[in-house]
């Protein structure tokens, strides 16, 4: 059963996503002990280096072994502004007109090999992320282009000096992949952490069977008092959903932390009743439809606008939500975030008009004007059911209502990326998946390729870049929001560079004896398991 909780607002950070989770009648006292077994929906992580990887497989496998500098509050993970210290002693107030952040590092923290963790280790890890040495990958390097200098005046202090003040920095610093490694190891071999694990987190590595399972045991020297509550954990790799659902059914595993579709949720609820608790939340992930601006007729803004005007998101979303893990209609910013558009604001944009007949009539008019009535094209999609294929199939039907004839080409992940990189597509179903809700960085995805290399739309738009740069530097909340509306309008309406589909809905099943874990808007967040305990 899904138990609803109230949503709390905190300052600027109104808790927005519908995180439905058990709200205990009275605070429960965590019990110590037990091994948590959970499923990881992957074959194996490509590597253990969080700085290099972007996949949840790495986080779900290895996050429990590591510490970070700051993080989203694990007791309030649905908040977009509730950041707390992990390795630092307190959240700093920026100085120097908001350009300098000085962090004091906890004393007495040890790596799992017994050596002390200092500010030098924190700085070395961040340098690897911000400016990796040649031959070393850093997946989020672009997030930290705003960092000018990183200093360590003493073993307990790390100072970040930014090029300009921006509200994007703190959320970026809380990224769950920014694990702190040991400087001495990085100095010897910056690739060491790709195949090895040695952190300072709540658990120590107890064993890793390739493609099978990863195990951790409690770190007795963990610096958060009383934690972790668990004696250990076992993460079992299982790419097939049926295996994971059966394992939860039979209590071979207590749950999984990525997300199940509605059908699996319903099946487990029906069979297990109150032995399973479902938590659900809007997910900071969604499919984005990208026309290839270098291919005719998608270089014509009328055609792109027609594509978006044909889609009835408001009625499509509740229907799709029954069969796919999608739910909330939104714009380019995660719904409910302070910078997100309200429903009324969205309804002024192409693709979100409340009157779908009027919208489709306009789409047909534009197609006729552009001379491409009855246009036939191919929609490139990734070979994953949930929700890619569901969304694409629905889209093709929506487009058929304005006379467009669309076929779907489904390919595995590798060729999908390759086609996007090489521009070998008409229109593609992409995904935009982010961790910490950080709208100022999350919307980089819509910037032209010359600025954001993971944009595959093949368009240039200097005006868009100018709005973005202004928005990134704006410190006044209201002005920043207005700039975000301008940016969004240009992306989704005026130029119709991209189309944002319904945001994904994250459904997490946990056996009812698993306590302490709270759902957040990202499957990358809150995975160190330090506050999880077993009520049995």
């Amino acid at each position, binding site marked *: 059963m899904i138990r609803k909780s109230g949503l709390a607002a905190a300052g600027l950070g109104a808790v927005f996503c519908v995180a439905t989770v058990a709200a205990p009648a009275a605070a429960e006292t965590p019990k110590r002990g037990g091994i948590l077994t959970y499923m990881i929906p992957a*074959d*194996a992580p*490509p*590597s253990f280096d969080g700085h290099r*990887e*972007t*996949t949840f497989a790495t986080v779900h496998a290895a996050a429990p072994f590591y510490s970070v500098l700051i993080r989203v509050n694990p007791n309030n993970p649905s908040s977009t502004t509730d950041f707390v210290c992990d390795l630092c002693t307190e959240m700093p107030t920026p100085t120097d007109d908001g350009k300098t952040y000085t962090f004091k590092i906890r004393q007495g923290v040890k790596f799992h090999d017994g050596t002390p963790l200092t500010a030098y280790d924190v700085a070395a890890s961040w340098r690897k992320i911000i400016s990796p040495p*040649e*031959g070393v*990958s850093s*997946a989020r390097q672009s997030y930290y282009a705003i960092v000018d200098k990183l200093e360590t005046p003493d073993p307990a202090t790390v100072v970040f000096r930014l090029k300009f003040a921006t509200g994007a920095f703190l959320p970026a610093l809380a990224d769950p992949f920014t694990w702190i490694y040991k400087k001495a190891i990085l100095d010897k071999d910056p690739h060491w952490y*790709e*195949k090895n694990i040695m952190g300072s987190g709540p658990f120590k590595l107890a064993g890793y*069977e*390739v*493609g*099978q*399972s990863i195990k951790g045991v409690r770190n007795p020297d963990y610096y958060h008092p009383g934690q972790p509550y668990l004696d250990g954990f*076992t993460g*079992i*790799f*299982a*790419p*097939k959903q*049926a*295996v994971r659902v*059966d*394992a939860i*059914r*039979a*209590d*071979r*595993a207590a749950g999984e932390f990525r997300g199940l579709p509605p059908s699996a949720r319903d099946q487990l609820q029906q*069979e297990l009743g109150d032995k399973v608790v479902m938590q659900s939340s809007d997910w900071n992930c969604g499919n984005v439809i990208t026309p290839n601006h270098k291919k005719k007729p998608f270089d014509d803004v009328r055609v792109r606008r027609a594509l978006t005007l044909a889609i009835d998101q408001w009625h499509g979303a509740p229907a799709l939500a029954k069969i796919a893990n999608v739910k909330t209609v939104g714009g380019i910013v995660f719904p409910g975030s302070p910078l997100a558009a309200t429903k009324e604001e969205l309804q002024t944009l192409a693709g979100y008009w409340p009157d779908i007949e009027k919208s489709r009539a306009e789409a047909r008019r534009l197609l006729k004007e552009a001379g491409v009535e009855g246009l036939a094209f191919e929609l490139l999609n990734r070979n994953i059911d949930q929700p890619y294929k569901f969304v694409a199939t629905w889209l093709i039907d929506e487009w058929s209502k304005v006379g467009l004839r669309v076929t779907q080409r489904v390919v*595995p992940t*590798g*060729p999908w*990326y*390759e086609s*996007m*990189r090489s521009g070998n597509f008409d229109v593609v179903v*992409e995904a935009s998946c982010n961790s910490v809700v950080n709208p100022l960085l999350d919307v980089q995805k819509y910037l032209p*390729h010359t600025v954001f*290399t*993971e944009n595959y739309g093949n368009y240039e738009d200097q005006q868009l870049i100018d709005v973005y740069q202004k928005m990134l530097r704006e410190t006044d909340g209201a002005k920043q929001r207005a700039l975000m509306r301008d940016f969004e309008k240009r992306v989704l309406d005026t130029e119709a560079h991209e189309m944002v589909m319904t945001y994904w809905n994250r459904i997490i099943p946990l056996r009812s004896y698993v306590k302490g874990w709270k759902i957040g808007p990202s499957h990358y967040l809150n995975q160190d398991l330090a506050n999880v305990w077993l009520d049995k």
Partner: protein
Amino acid sequence: MHRYVVNRVLLLIPTLVGAAAVVFVLMRLIPGDICVLRLGSGGMSVNPRAIALCHAELGLDRPLIVQFLDFVWGFFRLDFGISMWSGKPVAEEIAARLPISLEIAVMATVIAILIAIPLGTISALKQNSWIDHVVRTVAIAGIATPSFWLGIVSLLAVLSISHAIFGAPWMPPIDYVPFWQDPLHNLSVAILPALTVGYRYSAVTMRMTRSAMLEVLREDYIRTARAKGLVERLIVNRHALKNALLPVVTLIGIEFAFLIGGLVVTEQVFNINGVGRLLVLAIQNQDYTLTQALVMLTVAIFVLANLVVDLLYAWLDPRIRFA
């Protein structure tokens, strides 16, 4: 006999070299680049310099003939190289998965033999009786039923039946543990996949056994044995079965070799971390070294299985001599 065995083992060499050439060429014909996959796995764009460095690190910038000779020479020295994807030794990657694949293959073979040979024999002896019809139906069902479907259904059946009887669903463990660490846990993991695969395996073997037995039972020496008044059990066990087993042994050998790396879908259903799944992953990841090693391993197993079968022939049929 020794010379025969040595000759057959030596014949492995050109077979393996031929297989190596085929897999080497085929892998490089598949579009894609492992470095682009590795460095751009999250959709990140990759700069050409990083790709070039990656190619150099993996030895992909060397001439193809050098790569091929290096691979073949390494194989014969039992140095299979490093997995291009994980960076771990290929031998380590395979060693982590071979035990469970071998165990399931052996268990499935034993199950198949224990079911197929007695039932096939009885079916032949009772030709056209109701026993024969039942056995043949079971065999056809086994051949017609996909193993993965049977696996899924058997898991669901175990869950449902346990739920009905005990009030809570139960399924075997899904994490593999070596036999010597926890025999019960190990066998619990392996039994369902072994039964699933073994059933199909036994169906094919059952039909071959029945067919071979029918042919042998019509031979003059069997008629002579009956005419001499020998007990039927003795005729079947000592005279008929041994001769009928020749084609059956061939089949068992080939099927066993196939089981080592061919259970991809079954491994997915039961979440078995086996060699079949590893091969699929290796191909998807364009991991040349790992794919090549796995294919060579499969070829070697097939060839050795055939050798063992041929040697068994000599034991079964004394007329067979190896020049």
